[in-house]
């Protein structure tokens, strides 16, 4: 069969970068041997809904799969399905990805969506393709939803892939202009923390599943086949979660003697000096930290095992090891009061010379706050899925703050973030101190 896998355009995007559609490349890798697969990255290539539909129709496909990861691509995904079906109802449409998983009931009921794969699609999607190709039954395929006999049928969940090493490497060669994309590597799946504003745990499962270090190194070697890998990033939710493993990966990357620089995600409480030494020595140039709040009280409520002072220590350590830390904060967290927000402002101001991303608490589908708002003292305001955005509007009244005031505090936080970014005094000081330290050493 001819199968198009689409990363849909966003209706409202705040990220202006090109990102490798890793999920689609993983799925493509599973089915490419038996089918002709085309990956269409409308998100990064800025193709409109209309252009995407035209491309699909031109390719004369049998099946279209759309990865609806973000809320901002929810409507465009539906529009693409509808457009394709209106021209050629014979094309089978499959929706998948994070947002699709949590909107499966609504999506599967739409006349232009044939199937929804829920959760990770590594097993469900190939099984579904096989059934479509052979005309077989889908009733035994786990992890899919579909409309049948006037109702939406949700087959039982598909168990997670336990051994991630069994998965083939992403089929990057099927992504047009792949050579222009920054490379991403998923060294693990899932997250152990289960934050109330995040749907990762619900999508990937609460456990933290890791690939073997050998398997990760093999993928890096493959990316560096022509000794031309300049940069990559670890797209895990938390690359530093298991320090021993992180350091082992770093040591193995260092042995490769590659020129590539890379970045990853981290958690403050996992960062130590010897880990930073290992990361820096292996070419790590930046670490992204979700700090969320500068209030000790709020951090404790979020189950964070670090204080605002710890954040400053890690900031200083990262800079002294030549690694740029990036931090992000959320305004409007459950039970947050103005005094807490002022503490967040204060922390942001201290994190000079680096980017501090500021966002508003947003009830994305699948997140604990969206599923049980009252448990968190939240009132979710009426909204459509595609409207949800962490940077433009608040959709939440908390017991302490109105949506309107959250928006105002968010704007102020953006200001503090810009103020901190413009300032380089602390970075100059830390750099000078670490140079002096080296000279003394």
């Amino acid at each position, binding site marked *: 069969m001819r199968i198009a896998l689409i990363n849909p355009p966003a209706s409202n995007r*705040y*990220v*202006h970068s090109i990102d490798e559609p890793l999920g689609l490349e993983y799925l493509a890798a599973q089915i490419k041997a038996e089918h002709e697969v085309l990956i269409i990255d409308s998100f990064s290539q*800025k193709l409109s809904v209309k252009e995407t539909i035209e491309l699909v129709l031109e390719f004369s496909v049998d099946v279209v799969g759309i990865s609806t990861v973000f809320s901002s691509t929810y409507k465009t995904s539906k529009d693409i399905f509808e457009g394709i079906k209106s021209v050629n109802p014979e094309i089978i449409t499959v929706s998948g990805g994070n947002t699709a998983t949590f909107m499966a009931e609504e999506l599967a009921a739409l006349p232009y969506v044939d199937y929804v794969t829920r959760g990770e699609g590594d097993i469900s999607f190939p099984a579904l393709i096989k059934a479509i190709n052979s005309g077989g039954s889908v009733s035994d395929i786990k992890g899919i939803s579909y409309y049948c006999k006037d109702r939406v049928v949700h087959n039982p969940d598909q168990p997670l892939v336990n051994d991630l090493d069994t998965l083939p490497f992403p089929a990057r060669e099927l992504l047009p202009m792949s050579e222009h994309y920054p490379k991403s590597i998923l060294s693990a799946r899932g997250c152990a923390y289960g934050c109330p504003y995040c749907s990762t745990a619900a999508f990937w499962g609460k456990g933290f599943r890791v690939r073997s270090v050998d398997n990760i190194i093999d993928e890096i070697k493959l990316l560096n086949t022509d000794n031309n890998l300049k940069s990559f990033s670890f797209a895990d939710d938390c690359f530093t979660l298991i320090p021993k493993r992180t350091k082992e990966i770093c040591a193995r990357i260092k042995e490769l003697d590659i020129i590539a620089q890379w970045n990853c995600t981290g958690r403050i409480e996992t960062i130590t000096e010897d880990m930073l030494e290992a990361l820096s020595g292996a070419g790590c140039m930046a670490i992204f930290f979700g700090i969320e709040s500068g209030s000790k009280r709020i951090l404790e409520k979020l189950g964070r095992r670090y204080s605002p002072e710890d954040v400053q220590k890690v900031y200083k350590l990262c800079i002294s090891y030549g690694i740029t830390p990036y931090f992000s904060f959320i305004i409007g967290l459950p039970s947050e009061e103005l005094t807490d927000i002022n503490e967040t*402002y204060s922390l942001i101001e201290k994190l000079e010379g680096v980017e501090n991303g500021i966002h508003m608490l947003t009830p994305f589908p699948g997140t604990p706050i969206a599923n049980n708002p009252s448990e968190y003292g939240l009132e979710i305001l009426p909204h459509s899925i595609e409207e949800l955005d962490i*940077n*433009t*509007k608040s959709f939440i009244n908390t017991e302490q703050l109105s949506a309107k005031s959250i928006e105002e505090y*968010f*704007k*102020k936080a*953006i*200001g*503090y973030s*810009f*103020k901190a970014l*413009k*300032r*380089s*005094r602390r970075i*100059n000081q830390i750099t000078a101190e670490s140079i002096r330290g080296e000279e003394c050493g």
Partner: protein
Amino acid sequence: MKQSKYNHIVEINQNKSALVNTLTGAVDIFSVEQLDYLDNNKDPSHNEVVQYLYKRQYLIDDDTDESYLTQQIFSAILQEQRRNTPLRGVIVTTFDCNLRCTYCWQQHNLNNSHRIKMTTGKIDGIFSSIEKLMSMVEYKKDTPPVIQLFGGEPLLVENKGLVEHILKECQKRHWYSQITTNGSQLSNFLDLFEKYDVGEIQITIDGPSEIHDKRRLGSSYKSLMESIDLLLQMDKVHVKLRVNTDLSNIDYIPAIAGDIIERQWYTNRKFFSYLSPLRDSSPDNVKLLNQRGTLISKFLNIREAYPQVEIFDVLGWNGFEAVKNLENTGRLPFPKAHICDANMNQFVFTPRGEIHVCAEEAHDSSGMVGSYWPDFAVNKDSFSRWYDKNPLELQFCKNCSMLPQCCGGCQLFSQDKEFISNFCDSVKASFDYGLKNYFKSEGLI
């Protein structure tokens, strides 16, 4: 020992003052009694304050020729600045403009100047002139020249062919192109920007609709913002948003910041916005300069209450920019060492076929330094009067303590002394307000 002539004292309160050396960048807080040692420093060896003042070069040896040393420093810095600045060619495509902004400094020149038209033949002459002019100035050799389209208004629909011709020539040579526009006819030019790899477009607003639409007669805030949305969707074009600021619109700056945040432009690395005080050289609006100190003071209060205005940079605030550098880096900037762009490495080409070095007097033929059409010629003496003008020899500036950070600010001011005192007052007031605020916000006083 004697005092450095670049010592500048800013009174902070009854008991304390800041002492700044605008040449060395030293900044300290002293008590009134300690400052007395600047004049009374007969016995340095036994006085810690005098020793400190000497160490920080507020006091210098009697035989130090500070003017000579300053000249040496300025020459070295200026040479370095020129070698690190790309050659800039400013093409005035027309002096005509479709707007009639209430404060425009060019307005009084429109009647006659706009009648002479730019042509594609003249544009070809400009590009071949730039290649000849390269030998006359120092500039950053490993970076392509920058061509800035200027006016009047460069993006008038009737001039689209000319604009395309300029952009095509830039692309052919791999030169960087910038356009400074009022943006009102932008939608008619969008197709050219990506086609010819335009690097940057600068657009000016004066406030939200209720202010902008009244002051920039013929322009609409709403449609401008929509045009910027379209520009930011393009792959390569950078957008620089200039917000004209004065006392009548400064209260609206937080609202404009809010609009930018809601539109998420601030997340786009191709977007840059800044606040700019209304022009210094407007002959009809001397009061704008007189208001500058008050404007800074008001801005600092607004910034305290509405930190979201930090999304704007501040450019063109002579005096305050030095303090901004102090805020951001902990140091005053190096001496400026040049008066203005006219003694860097810039050439301005007008529809009359004239070559100037100052864009603000390009309508006035008496300031020309040469011609590019019908024939290429440069008057070296005229050019030297601008390019080699030494800020240390400006009559009204050479004994000013602010000179290293201000350098006269604008050659037009230094030639036309009518506005000089207004300008100087505004620089000092902006610096002093800014510095006091800095100490306060840092908890140092």
